[in-house]
């Protein structure tokens, strides 16, 4: 952007610079006032004690509290682990879908299928999760049919366990994996797959040696998005996992809303930010991808 500004100012002088400034002002104001400033405020807050305790100095007590209380850091680890698991599952579910949509079906069908994939995402996440709840709850549609067909004697509670929560999280984040995968798979020349087959490779070897390496940028960018969305998701774990979900966002929510301890909540928030940054960095290192390439 600096290069563009530079060349523009060289060409037409201050007039264009003013135009550019006018264009940029809303963005800068938005980012500065609504994102950067609150974050700085929260960061400061996380290093101070709850004002109700009286003393108003700098302190690491909020962070200490996190490590001192096992429920906090256990939830934290559990959230991180499940988020990684959800990301992996989402990838495993999305790759065949994306491959089928781009490589197997005809072009027109492919567009139709892609629209069908997008369609549920026109509805808000809340509504979709409620949809799942209607299907899965004890008095829900699925249980009705299971008992009616005599497969189960009595209705089974399918909500409020980890498996359902994971499934819900995979469902909500699938699109964010499918779209980047579809775009990288479209750039994969079919003849590479055929060449691998011609040289004696079976389907699994082709996937492992040709398709996945080619899709790596899409996999990593999709993975980052899915991971961050899952880690910071509040709605789905809360509704589908219920009280047992123990998702770290709920801890943050409790601190802010239930305990009214904003300082503790802010510290938790920054710990989550640090965690997601660390895991993404680790993921990039492990897959040998560059962030600049992935975000393109």
């Amino acid at each position, binding site marked *: 952007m600096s290069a563009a500004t530079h060349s523009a100012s060289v060409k037409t002088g201050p007039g264009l610079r003013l135009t550019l400034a006018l264009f940029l002002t809303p963005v800068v104001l938005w980012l500065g006032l609504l994102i950067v400033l609150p974050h700085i405020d929260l960061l400061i807050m996380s290093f101070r004690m709850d004002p109700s305790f009286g003393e108003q100095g700098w302190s690491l007590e909020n962070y200490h509290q996190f490590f001192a209380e096992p429920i906090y850091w256990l939830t934290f680890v559990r959230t991180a682990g499940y988020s990684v698991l959800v990301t992996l599952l989402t990838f495993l579910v999305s790759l065949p879908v994306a491959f089928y949509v781009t490589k197997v079906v005809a072009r027109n069908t492919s567009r139709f299928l892609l629209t069908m994939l997008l369609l549920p995402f026109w509805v808000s996440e809340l509504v979709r999760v409620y949809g799942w709840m209607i299907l899965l709850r004890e008095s829900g549609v699925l249980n009705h049919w299971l008992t009616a067909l005599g497969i189960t004697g009595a209705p089974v509670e399918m909500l409020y366990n980890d498996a359902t929560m994971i499934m819900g999280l995979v469902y909500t984040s699938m699109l964010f994996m499918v779209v980047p995968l579809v775009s990288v798979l479209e750039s994969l020349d079919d003849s*590479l797959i*055929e*060449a691998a*087959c011609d*040289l004696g490779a079976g389907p699994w070897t082709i996937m492992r040696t040709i398709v996945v390496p080619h899709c790596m940028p899409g996999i990593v960018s999709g993975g980052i998005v899915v991971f961050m969305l899952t880690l910071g998701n509040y709605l789905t774990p809360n509704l589908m996992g219920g009280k047992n979900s123990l998702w770290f966002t709920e801890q943050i929510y409790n601190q802010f809303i239930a305990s009214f301890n904003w300082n503790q909540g802010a510290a938790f928030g920054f710990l989550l930010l640090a965690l997601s940054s660390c895991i993404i960095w680790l993921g990039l290192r492990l897959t040998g991808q560059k962030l600049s390439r992935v975000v393109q």
Partner: protein
Amino acid sequence: MQGPAVSPLPQYRGGTATDTGWPGSGWPSRCAAHGGPSPLANLRHPRSGPGAGHETRSRDRAGRAAKAGGWTGAAGVHDQMPTDISPVAPSVLSPVASPVVSPDASPDAFADLSVTNLVKRFERFTAVNDVSFEVERGKFFSILGPSGCGKTTLLRMIAGFESPDSGVIAIRGRDMAGIAPNRRPANLIFQHLALFPMMTVAENIAFGLKRRGMAGGEITRRVQDVLERVGLPGYGAKMPAQLSGGQKQRVAIARCLVLEPAVLLLDEPLGALDLKLREQMKVELKTLQAEVGTTFVYITHDQSEALVMSDHVAVMNAGRFEQLDTPRNLYRRPATAFVAGFVGETNVWSGTLEESTGDAGLVRTDEGAVFRARVAAGLARGARVDMFIRPEAVLIDPDGVACATGDAPGGVTDGAAGDGGDAPLPVRGASADLGNRVQVQVQAILFDGAASRLLTHPEGSRREVMVALPQNRLYDHIRPGDRITVGWDDRAGICFAAGSGQ
């Protein structure tokens, strides 16, 4: 270029297949040494010089094939082949040696590739329509056809990527029905080569060997061997993106050859290269094929590629084989109007058959001129015909009125030229066979070095007639607008039923 007696193949001295033409003095070269010239170029200027240029151009093509393949010796045998060739008769495919295959013969007795009555339909469209052929071990076989003629479908069926609706594909006598591409002893070189961009050259080549579960040390050794064989030693650690077009080509070939396939299939791999490199790769491919002895099946829409490299060429059109023959027979004795129009350049005159005896006939063109020409079988008097005549067979000023300055030394006669059934070469100076004459007006000179042409209209007609313009300085006086006489041999033109070439 001292004289014809020095080298039997003087026009190939450069050792490249580039169409450099014949910068010589107008001496007729001794084409008899390699089987004689094409009948369509079987023309001599009655006096001396000018005709030689014509001959060289057309002979060049056939001769290049001979040179590149190193099968000059066999060419003479091919020349003996009958003129009327059924496009799908497998027996004519191996004119040199065709062992009779008995059911209990050893596997070695089978052709490397045999295709029988192959049919492939896409909904209502028939892509490959009852095609049969056989390719002997170690042969370079080409399928030549315009885009959309079904040649790629045919190749993909042999590779296993498409399954035929009916018919049999057998590789070394083994029926390939139901065998997946990764289990077939045939490898395909893709049009855009399909090198794996995320792997090094060595990894690309090792890919197939790894799939066979070969030990690491053995793989390394074989990869190095094959890299040396294709002339790229030490390139193993490079990425495909770092290679030039020709190098990528060779890596793609190495990647297949390392697996020692029974048949190597090539899907127009030279298409993406620039002209100069393509010319070079043609020779390289042919040499490599002769060296490794693998059976090549090559598909292309570029007739020069097919003619230069192949032992046999099948011309394919609308899902069928029009003719299957040696390159020089395709050029000289096209079996159908399509082949006549597709292989080599050609002028077409439409007219009516006035008279026909055997394969010779008299054609009255729509403009009223009467020409002698060869006639395809089955045409009766009064039939509407298209007469095909190659630009390089048309001589400018055949009676030598305008350029009587030609003072070349005489005494070289080619009367002994055996051309397997074609009329013997006329003795130089004799114009007896050059029975066809027409007055034309030069519209434009299309200068293209050795391939220069005159665009002409016969008097009183808008028909375009291309005439080869040899660059031997004898025709430098010709200007657009000039009226000139052109003529050609009685057997240079060939007639087919009108409209049958579409």
